[in-house]
């Protein structure tokens, strides 16, 4: 009986500790990144079917502004997002090499399907395919960090 109590107590402690948000270690982060790039994030070979032009880029920026800015900021680089570095894993800057290394098809896949267990949600159906492909262009042409200010929701 005593042994069972001890076992349950240890499990409870483990669970509580496991729930706590903490930054992933260097090894964990590198392994997770490699797994995402090479294994779990699909659609590597699909090319962006939308013809690039200034209007499409504007549409992509507008679509990004619908709700991506809540986590990624207006500039895609987390400017003004108060919790970006406090999430586990932290919200990445979309201008970072780790993100830009994804192919266009993979970026579309991530926006469509999200990434578990990070906070990245699936947006398939919430946004149209054309809007998502336009957003991929926006992610490839992000403005200078901080140049667009902070999302309005965090400035009140």
């Amino acid at each position: 009986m005593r042994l069972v109590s001890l076992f349950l107590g240890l499990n409870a402690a483990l669970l509580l500790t496991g729930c706590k948000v903490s930054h992933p270690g260097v090894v964990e982060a590198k392994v997770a990144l490699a797994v995402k790039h090479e294994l779990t994030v699909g659609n590597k070979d699909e090319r962006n079917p939308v013809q690039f032009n200034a209007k499409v880029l504007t549409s992509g920026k507008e679509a990004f502004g619908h709700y991506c800015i809540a986590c990624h900021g207006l500039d895609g680089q987390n400017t003004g997002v108060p919790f970006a570095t406090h999430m586990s894993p932290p919200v990445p800057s979309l201008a970072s090499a780790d993100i830009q290394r994804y192919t266009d098809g993979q970026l579309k896949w991530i926006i469509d399907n999200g990434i578990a267990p990070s906070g990245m949600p699936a947006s398939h159906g919430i946004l149209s395919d054309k809007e998502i492909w336009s957003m991929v262009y926006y992610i490839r042409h992000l403005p200078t960090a901080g140049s667009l200010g902070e999302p309005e929701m965090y400035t009140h």
Partner: protein
Amino acid sequence: MRSNHFAATLGIAILAGAITISSYSAQDPPRKITVEAKRYQFTPSEIDLKKNVPVVIEFTSKDVDHGLVFDDLALTAKIGKGKTIDVPFTPTEAGTFVGQCSSFCGEGHGSMKLTIHVTE
């Protein structure tokens, strides 16, 4: 002789004018098609049009801001919350065209579509 010629010319002119006026007034006004926009669908979701026949599409938003955009048709609309707008439109190509809500309206926005069938 000269006055006869003048009378004949005047008569022809009056006749031509009358025909023009009568044919103009006989033209039917463009058909009006009513489309309601409400999260997350257009009702009706499909409409049938004839090539080169002008229509007026009356869009009404029943809730939030909506919009409409087509890749291959010169037809766009911005429909404000609770507003009704008339959009004159004349299709110039036959085919099936799928438009998409262009104003983010919520979680089903991406699947809010309107299909237009244009026949010869």
